[in-house]
């Protein structure tokens, strides 16, 4: 009886191990490359252990290399500013909107709600051309603002969707009793409705962060001066030389991944809770 | 149909709780139970007493921390639920929503490889037995609670399992339906006498359905006896207070012996009863139990004498059929059930008496056996 148990136990665990391997090997391989000096990359070897181990590539990140066009600290800063502003603004705009759609009835509500959600089925390229022209006319090319505005907007459909379902799930009793106690609608919203919705708000922030940090197309289009580049663009600089600088590239990629991974690991339960709610809402 | 034997079955949960005392939770203390072929045994107790854990161990969902389970002599303790040839009815029916009633009833037979013609016949038979023939092509979602429960019963019984388990199956039904289904279950058990273990917190269900009742409290067996035994000879304070509605009066008394007799005095000073225990008791404290319906009372005329105690009515609760009222006897509240229709009003002065043959005495929580002596011997 016990032997049969063991035999049944193994294949699933093996399959899981294989998938884990599949998921993580690319990271491991990049990490190894980033920890080796450039010269040792160019011999064929099949080991995950860096040999010899060196931090030279990471140190190189911190010094700008105008010749190669790589300036990690600058790009990191740009990404950070853009993404943080985006997240803050996205939350500020999406939370009241989701609350409004959840709690109120007004003329055109369905049209607005579904209109917002509907736009998210189209590829981002579609909006790109007119937006590019618009930003050009407004003189906003090559500014943080152009990206922030775009990212903020594209995150709205998903954010409003998640937050609305959170608000729908919070009973209105407490808000009603606050109103009866004399609170204004706004105060009821801020002080009574928002606290229980915090998990949803955090999830929204995470989604927006991940989305904006990784965004490439709009950054590619709106930004052409190298000093304003965000990280996704910055990595590309390593390709501009004849032979791509894999050491620098992998180090940059790893460094670029770290903030997102940290944010996710710390807040993952909110992230997963929000996705779970979305999956079961129907 | 089979004989089930539980030997030393127990379950302890260990957690890594900060509080050392809360670390080991003894959900079920070691117990032995023999259920004979075709017997209907109910495991009765309040929530948290371990009855569901016990059931889960029998069916194989939870592995026991110790002990063995034998079905017809075969040790199934390590077997998967699939292999135990048991069937179960759940509180929320657990029907397969994507299948029709026929599909649900058929499922166990299909899984065992029973050929199609035979399946259809058995499904039709079972449907007829349960009154489901008209509903065979409906889906669970289209059925009422009672109908769903009957489908659940049918699905469980259709393959004639060795053991039939029911986990509070009637709790989700409304009161009238519950009574109806209770009769159904009794009838079913007569037609198909499968060995049955039934779990509930409703003591009237336990009394109505079972051949034997196992009362559980905080993981341990309080009493294992026929329904009659549980009701008329509760072994301890817990069973006494749990079985019977309205609940038995449990009144603290002090005990003083005089010869072979033992006098029980309530806190207020009235002598509630004079009893003759089989084994003489030391003086001290105890608990006197008497069911509200056994308390005798009459309107007070003048001084009370003899075994009667004077009392005032505190509250009345007229349910239409009977009247339940609370009387103050020397500071102690006594619940009385009046079934003959006499009028009772708050503030009435009445006299109360506890007939010796209806009185139970508990010392240190356990029942004290009395001598069978004619009542007259206890008159003071």
């Amino acid at each position, binding site marked *: 009886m016990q032997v049969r148990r063991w035999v049944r136990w193994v294949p699933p665990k093996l399959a899981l191990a294989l998938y884990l391997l599949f998921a993580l090997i690319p990271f491991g391989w990049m990490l190894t490359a980033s920890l080796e000096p450039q010269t040792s990359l160019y011999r064929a070897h*099949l080991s995950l252990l860096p040999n010899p181990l060196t931090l030279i590539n990471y140190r190189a990140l911190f010094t700008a290399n105008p010749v190669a066009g790589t300036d990690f600290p600058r790009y990191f800063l740009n990404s950070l500013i853009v993404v943080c502003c985006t997240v803050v603004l996205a939350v500020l705009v999406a939370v*009241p909107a989701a609350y409004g759609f959840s709690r109120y009835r007004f003329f055109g509500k369905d049209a607005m709600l579904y209109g917002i959600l509907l736009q998210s089925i189209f590829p981002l390229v579609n909006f790109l051309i007119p937006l590019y022209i618009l930003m050009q006319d407004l003189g906003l090319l090559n500014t943080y603002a152009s990206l922030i505005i775009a990212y903020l907007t594209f995150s709205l459909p998903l954010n409003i969707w998640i937050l609305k379902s959170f608000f729908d799930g919070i009973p209105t009793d407490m808000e009603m009793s606050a109103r009866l106690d004399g609170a204004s609608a706004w105060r009821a919203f801020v002080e009574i409705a928002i606290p229980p919705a915090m998990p949803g708000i955090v999830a929204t922030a995470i989604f927006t962060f991940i989305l904006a940090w*990784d965004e490439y197309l709009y950054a590619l289009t709106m930004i052409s001066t190298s000093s304003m580049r965000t990280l996704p663009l910055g990595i590309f600089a390593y390709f501009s030389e004849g032979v791509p600088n894999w050491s620098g590239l992998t180090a940059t990629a790893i460094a670029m991944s770290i903030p997102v991974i940290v944010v996710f690991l710390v807040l993952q339960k909110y992230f997963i809770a929000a996705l779970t709610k979305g999956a079961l809402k129907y | 149909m089979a004989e089930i034997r539980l030997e030393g079955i127990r379950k302890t949960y260990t957690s890594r709780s900060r509080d050392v005392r809360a670390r080991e939770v003894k959900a079920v203390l070691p117990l032995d139970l023999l259920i004979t072929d075709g017997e209907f045994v109910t495991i009765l107790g309040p929530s948290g007493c371990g009855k569901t854990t016990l059931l889960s161990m029998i069916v194989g969902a939870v592995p026991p921390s110790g002990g063995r389970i034998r079905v017809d002599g075969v040790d199934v303790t390590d077997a998967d639920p699939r292999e135990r040839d048991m069937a179960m009815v759940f509180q929320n029916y657990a029907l397969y929503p994507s299948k029709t009633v026929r599909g649900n009833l058929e499922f166990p037979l299909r899984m065992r490889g029973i050929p199609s013609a035979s399946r259809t016949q058995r499904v039709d038979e079972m449907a007829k037995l349960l009154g489901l023939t008209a509903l065979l092509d409906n889906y669970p979602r289209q059925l009422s609670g009672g109908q769903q429960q009957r489908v659940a019963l049918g699905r469980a019984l259709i393959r004639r399992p060795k053991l039939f388990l029911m986990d509070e199956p009637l709790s989700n039904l409304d009161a009238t339906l519950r009574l109806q289904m209770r009769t159904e279950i009794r009838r079913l058990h007569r037609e198909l006498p499968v060995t049955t273990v039934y779990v509930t917190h409703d003591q009237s269900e336990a009394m109505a359905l079972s051949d034997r009742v196992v009362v559980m409290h905080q993981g341990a067996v309080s009493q294992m006896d026929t329904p009659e035994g549980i009701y008329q000879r509760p072994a301890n304070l817990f069973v006494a207070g749990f079985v019977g509605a309205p609940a038995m009066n449990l009144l603290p008394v002090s005990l003083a012996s005089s010869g072979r007799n033992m006098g029980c005095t309530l806190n207020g000073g009235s002598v509630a009863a004079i009893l003759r225990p089989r084994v003489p008791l030391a003086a001290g404290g105890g608990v006197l139990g008497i069911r509200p319906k056994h308390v005798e009372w009459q309107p007070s005329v003048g001084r009370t004498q003899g075994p009667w105690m004077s009392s005032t009515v505190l509250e009345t609760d007229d349910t239409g059929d009977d009247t339940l009222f609370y009387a103050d006897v020397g500071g102690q509240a006594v619940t009385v059930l009046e079934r003959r229709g006499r009028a009772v009003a708050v503030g009435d002065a009445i006299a109360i008496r506890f007939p010796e043959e209806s009185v139970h005495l508990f010392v240190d929580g356990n029942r004290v056996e009395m001598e069978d002596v004619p009542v007259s011997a206890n008159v003071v």
Partner: protein
Amino acid sequence: MWRERLAGLPYVMPAVLVVIAVMSYPFLYCIYLSFRATPSYTTETHFAGLANYGAVLNDPVFLNSLLITVTWTIGSTVFDILLGMGAALLVNQLTWFRGPIRAALMLPYIVGYVIASYAWLWLYQAEYGLINELLTSWGVLSHPISLLSSLTWALPAVILVNIWKTAPFAMIMFLAGLQSIPEQTVMAAELDGASKTRAFFEIKLPYLRRVIIITSVVMTLQNFNTFTIPYIMTSGGPLNHTEIVSNYIYNDAFTNLDFGGAAAASVVVMIILMVFAVLYVGSLTRRQPGVV
């Protein structure tokens, strides 16, 4: 909810205005542009009727990109669902290390398309990439090849990258679905003698129907609308074999400087997607008694 008809408006206005400005207006402007000729040497445009549409719909490169995109989408989504479901089933059974394993499996999704593209570029690297190393040392290849330049293998290769990145989303959705299946019903099936596989297909799957449909639709749309992976890894090559629709539109606009044509192509894509969306919303709202 309260009946003050206008009271809710201030809450939603910022969001609505932003969306109108940044999405609706470009949407309409795009349609407008699609009917105008946009010569590259000037910012003047003039009305051109259906000329752009004619050009686009007859352009073999566009039609090719549609084909590639459909292949890409179906290939990615199908394996996303399969892999996601498999992973969800496996992770759901775990008793220890469930949290860390789940987090590790989500990493590809979290780091984003850009990192995914560069990581796999390194893996596929013609001389030193892991893939080549493995294949040569196992004797499958006699010498390292550049997968991304191969006419037959480039598309599967980039699809694999997309699957790698997007499958965890399906996994999470299905994990949630699995956890919503009532335990007692599964136990009932077990007691009735169902084996693990039969229990999955006959009992569990009906409960998962909705989440599978929703996940499929969402992922189909997401996959159809990707841009980054082919752009970074192959620039749509070799010979347009990995050029998906988003790449086509981008190239048309910013390399060929034909905004009008690109706009027309965008509109064609939007129409296709709207038809798709309508069809699938229908299957969600269908409610038969036997459907869970």
